[in-house]
């Protein structure tokens, strides 16, 4: 956080319209201090090593999935930075893995600001393992029930009237909380927990 109590944000996005739009929403809230945006990933490593922003709003398609130019590798130079993927089209799952949150820019501005503040205020990371919440939220249970029934992300999104990216975020949280990765395993979990019959 900066001295004025604002969170510093760096945007990495090639589209000028999107950058301008994000800047305008962020500035209006007076909670963010926006650094000079980058249009591609080329200088991100240098930039965040120097500025260590609290939040990185990044277009995940600008980076390879793995290797030294991947987002995950670059972020190692500034471990306190929270990476948030900004998406406005379908993006391959693997590219979203290194982000803590997926932000669909088509969502309403209030929702955007609330979810960004939520993730920032989660920081610092819980100090002890006991602080981590392993209980599934009601929404996560809804998603899990549909996963267990064999529905794909698109179908789950349609059923629950949420975006595919939100479904993916829920699924990542379910895997993190339960420690179970496969659909077959999640189905057994859902049945044992009485989430589905």
């Amino acid at each position, binding site marked *: 956080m900066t001295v004025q109590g604002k969170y510093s944000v760096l945007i990495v996005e090639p589209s000028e319209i999107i950058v301008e739009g994000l800047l305008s929403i962020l500035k209006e809230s007076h909670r963010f201090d926006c650094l000079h945006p980058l249009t591609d990933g080329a200088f991100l490593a240098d930039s965040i090593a120097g500025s260590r922003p609290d939040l990185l709003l990044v277009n995940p398609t600008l980076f390879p999935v793995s290797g030294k130019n991947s987002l995950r590798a670059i972020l190692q130079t500034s471990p306190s930075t929270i990476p948030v993927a900004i998406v406005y089209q379908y993006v391959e799952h693997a590219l979203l893995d290194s982000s803590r949150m997926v932000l669909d820019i088509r969502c309403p501005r209030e929702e955007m600001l609330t979810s960004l503040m939520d993730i920032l205020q989660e920081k610092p990371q819980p100090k002890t393992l006991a602080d981590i919440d392993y209980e599934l939220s009601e929404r996560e249970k809804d998603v899990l029930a549909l996963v267990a029934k064999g529905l794909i992300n698109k179908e789950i999104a349609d059923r629950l009237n949420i975006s595919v990216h939100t479904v993916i975020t829920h699924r990542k949280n379910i895997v993190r909380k339960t*420690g179970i990765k496969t659909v*077959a*395993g999640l189905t057994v979990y859902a049945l*044992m927990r009485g989430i589905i019959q």
Partner: protein
Amino acid sequence: MTPLHFSPHMRLAELISANHNLILILPRLGISLGFGDRSVREVCVQYDVPEDFFLLLCNVYSFEDYRPGRKEIEHTDMHLLAHYLRKSHQDYLDRLKHIERHLQQLAGQVEPKYGQLLTGFYEEYQQEVIEHFDCEEKIVFPYMQQLEDGGTMPEGTEGFSIARFKHVHGNVHDKLNDLTGIIFKYLPGNVFPKESIELIFDIFQISIDLDRHTLVENKVLVPYVEHLERIRK
């Protein structure tokens, strides 16, 4: 090879102390226990196992970051590769059967509906592994053999290439990890911790080993067949 990895002059016993799991490799290559203080080189000569191949396996098994270079793959004597992988498969299938028996015992002691969930999950998993191994033994290995020996493609391998295998080659241990989690975290009314713990340890062990097996396939089998494909073109 960097000094961090195993070398032919080390005693075989040293390798095993460094990584106990290496002991699993020995019977698959026909090497018996009781090798005393003999070096890797001496043991390999005794059992007629190419030393470079043996070390390649041990290194991939033990050092997660280790990835043999193209030169190393090209210069290694791989004539035992398919044999080794087949033996490994048999080994896993035997151990999965053993786990299945224990799991059925455990499943018989909890509420039937949960017991059925466990055994159902496991059977499905086991079937997947069998199909996975089957595909390798019926298509990938014959394909590799044909590239090594020349001649016409064996039946079932027409149009196959290792790139396709790479594409579909999934890992076979995620489900096993899920199973252990389900048993120790979520199985309701599981009041038989001794059986559960033994079972979970068996699963942990095979899960680690299957993970290594996948590494051998990805880091040795795939690049070797790619090399064969290059020289055949």
